[in-house]
């Protein structure tokens, strides 16, 4: 970024709302090996009372650093090198006998108390945390203490306001109910592991509310959750905030989410604000290339909130006489855990086939059985019922050893490239491991093959000796794809291959997969919960719900005119539609034009 842009992006101060947070020229760096790497470089930002601000950017853009600065939770190696963060907290009669806020408070002449957060002592920050600024953390699965009851964890936040005794218990239930937790009495006595991810996120929202803050920071609040749960929770959070006049700062990498939820969208790149304004303006006339790229990459936004399938398959071509893999009437039954009698039907007579050179998608939420289906296709699990045939050969009931050679035709790409690569293997070792395992070629031919594969996934040959830690998420996923291609498979099973990646990187990986499919004639079985992503890569799709196939057919037919309520619900939950309706229709083509470049 050049210096000139800082003038362009000076914060538009709205005269209508009084600011709650004023950030001026904030610089934050992280000290590593005695050098300070800047993460936030000269950010000016204000958040008004009752305003919803969405901070968008890719990983490393500094969005979480800004959030952590506001709530005073920067890690030990972070240094605020310049700038100021002012928190304007109104005079609160209830605060009179409350703890902590008395330190370093000034009256700024308008009867308002102002606290400078930069350089403030821990005691001051602690007084602000929870009671002025609340936090809804990223991953609800790990955001709650596993060894304490839900009620106790909510009570802690309330007790800090000086509430005790029966009032405390009553307030715990009240906040849980407010956050949309069903049956609060029961939940308060339960432990986190007994709750679903969505419920845990609601509990965390309840904890954030419990301190009666003026600002809630939501750090990627729902990216770990199913789309429909995600939508319900964001709707709920937004409703609560609007109702009570709390300000909300949403941190997200997904411009679609930001556009849906924010009164104002702030786009960050490399620690600087690139652009900010109301979502309508940003989406209609993005001033910066970077913003345009983000818009193009967000599947929900690129086509004006519509899910536009990439491939239009005529209905008569949906069925295929000679699929690569065919799973017929597959059922899978698991015994219930522990001593419980009976069993759980994970899959109930689902039939799926993948045509040669095409992509078939399995869509559904957690517990829909899509991952079980993938595991059966790969041979990790045996179907309880039904038949599996690979390349015309019936492999139902055959063991792993018997089908090992056949399995060379099927390879798998995992969801999380941060976990699927051995951190001690170089890229070259990872890619050639399948060759070594099947004793194909010698050292020289394997290296040649690895170079060829790296070229296919658009990585330079010099990456052969790198370790995964030196690569970005997108690069790691490319390596994982190269490894899956090493044995020249016919079918590649893709288990949410882009859901752990930034939106703009997702786009590149999807592009790569489509490109490889065309060049190598690959077939894909693609598992995803994200319908917008599915529309970008798949020809046909099966929608699964609780182990049953709800509907299937070409992507255009299923997404265009869904016949089931469940599919419609999934489609409605795709973020970006609300924001996109604020877009003028005439701009739509321009945006798509950018998407192609």
């Amino acid at each position, binding site marked *: 970024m050049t210096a000139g842009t800082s003038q362009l992006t000076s914060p538009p101060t709205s005269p209508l709302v009084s600011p709650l947070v004023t950030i001026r020229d904030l610089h934050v760096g992280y000290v590593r090996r005695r050098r300070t790497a800047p993460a936030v470089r000269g950010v000016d930002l204000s958040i008004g009372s009752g305003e919803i601000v969405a901070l968008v950017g890719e990983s490393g853009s500094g969005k979480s650093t800004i959030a952590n600065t506001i709530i005073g*939770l920067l890690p030990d190696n972070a240094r605020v090198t310049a700038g100021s963060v002012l928190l304007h907290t109104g005079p609160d009669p209830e605060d009179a006998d409350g703890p902590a806020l008395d330190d370093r408070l000034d009256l700024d002449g308008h009867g308002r108390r102002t606290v400078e957060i930069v350089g403030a002592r821990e005691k001051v920050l602690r*007084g602000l*945390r929870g009671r002025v600024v609340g*936090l809804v953390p990223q991953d609800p699965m790990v*955001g709650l203490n596993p*060894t304490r009851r839900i009620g106790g964890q909510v009570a802690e*936040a309330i007790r800090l306001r000086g509430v005790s005794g029966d009032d405390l218990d009553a307030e715990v239930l009240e906040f849980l109910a407010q956050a949309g937790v069903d049956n609060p009495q029961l939940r308060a006595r339960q432990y986190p*592991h007994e709750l679903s991810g969505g419920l845990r996120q609601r509990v965390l929202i309840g904890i954030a509310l419990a301190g009666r803050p003026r600002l809630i920071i939501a750090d990627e609040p729902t990216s770990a959750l199913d789309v429909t749960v995600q939508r319900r929770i964001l709707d709920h959070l937004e409703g609560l905030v609007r109702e009570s006049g709390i300000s909300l700062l949403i941190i997200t990498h997904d411009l679609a989410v930001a556009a849906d939820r924010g009164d104002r969208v702030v786009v960050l790149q490399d620690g600087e604000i690139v652009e900010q304004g109301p979502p309508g303006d940003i989406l209609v006339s993005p001033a910066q290339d970077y913003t345009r790229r983000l818009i193009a990459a967000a599947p929900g936004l690129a086509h004006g909130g519509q899910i536009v399938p990439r491939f239009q398959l005529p209905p008569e071509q949906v069925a295929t006489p000679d699929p690569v893999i065919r799973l017929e009437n597959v059922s899978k039954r698991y015994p219930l*855990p522990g001593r419980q009698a009976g069993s759980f039907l994970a899959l109930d007579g689902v039939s799926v086939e993948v045509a040669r050179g095409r992509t078939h998608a399995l869509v559904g939420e*957690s517990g829909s059985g899509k991952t079980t289906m993938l595991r059966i296709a790969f041979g990790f699990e045996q179907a309880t019922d039904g038949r599996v045939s690979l390349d015309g050969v019936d492999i139902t009931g055959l063991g792993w050893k018997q089908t090992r050679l056949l399995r060379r035709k099927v390879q798998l790409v995992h969801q999380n490239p941060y976990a699927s690569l051995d951190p001690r293997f170089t890229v070259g070792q990872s890619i050639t491991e399948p060759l070594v395992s099947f004793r194909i070629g010698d050292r020289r031919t394997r290296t040649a093959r690895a170079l060829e594969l790296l070229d296919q996934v658009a990585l330079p040959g010099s990456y052969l000796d790198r370790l995964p830690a030196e690569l970005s998420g997108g690069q790691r996923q490319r390596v994982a794809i190269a490894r899956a291609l090493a044995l020249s498979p016919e079918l590649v099973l893709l288990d949410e291959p882009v859901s752990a990646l930034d939106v703009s990187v997702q786009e590149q990986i999807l592009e790569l997969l489509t490109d490889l499919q065309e060049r190598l004639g690959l077939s894909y079985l693609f598992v995803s919960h994200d319908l917008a992503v599915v529309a970008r890569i798949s020809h046909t799709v099966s929608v699964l719900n609780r182990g049953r196939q709800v509907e299937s057919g070409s992507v255009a037919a299923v997404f265009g005119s869904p016949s089931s309520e469940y599919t419609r619900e999934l489609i409605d939950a795709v973020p970006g539609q609300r924001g996109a309706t604020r877009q003028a229709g005439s701009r739509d083509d321009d945006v798509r034009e950018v998407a192609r470049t």
Partner: protein
Amino acid sequence: MTRYILGRFAQALVVLWAAYTVTFAVLYLLPSDPVALQLGAAGIETDKLTPEQLNTAMAQYGLDRPVLNQYFSHLWGFLHGDFGDSISKQQPVADLIGDRLGPTVALSITAATLSLVAGMALAYLASYMRWRPARLFLTRLPSFGASFPQFFIALLLIQLLSFNLGWLPATGVKGWKSLVMPSITISLLTASMLAQVLMRSFDDTLRQPYIVTARAKGLSRAAVQWRHGFRNALLPALTILGVLVGLTVTSAIVVETVFSRNGLGKLAQEAVLAQDVPVVLAIVSLAAAVFVFVNLVVDLLYPLLDPRIVQGRRKVASS
């Protein structure tokens, strides 16, 4: 829950039986001639005996029966609290052990308590301390403490506290004063080991996202560490607790020898030197029983500290 408890009990019994069997096998099957060994321990030199005399001697100690027969009769005896007779001392093993048990139990309990308190305090202090040099010093301390051999520490303590300062008796089992140096010697090692594990587990725990949630509530540092950090950090350390208590028992052999304490450790040392198989077998089984018991207690404590254990971790689908 009952199923969990019964399962742990069954496991403990199996481990105990296995420990006994392995010890028996090692003592009876490995040495070249167990008969000569044991008769030698009783002061009978097998070379000078006529075959008849040898047979009588063997019959007297039950050594003429097949090994399996001996194994089962010994096991049967053990189950009834009959540990047989010591060969070198011509006394029932149970009486021998009973005489020597007191000082060792006192020492072991004192040392275990001391190492628990010291280890936990050190780990907690190290994680609470914010001044970097002090913190660094505290985190390095355990590896320092664990790297000295116990006999060296014992001699150092005797030199300093008994001979130079004259505060504590160098030997004997009389009074609490005689317990101080032996238990310090033992717990220096075990406390260091515990502190090392705890520190690492503390560091891990304090990096967990729920700690951020707790801090974001506005809780004080001490409250976050105590209520959210400590209990979770304790879980991995609990597992080595069994090993540590076992270690205090085995350390007793060295320490009781150095401090001339007439305890089980000293008895074990004497029995091994005299190749008194029944005594060694009984002591090893007793040590195994202590070990199994502590682990059983730990296993039963676990579900109280970690609610996830009994219900079994419900797997959360990743998709």
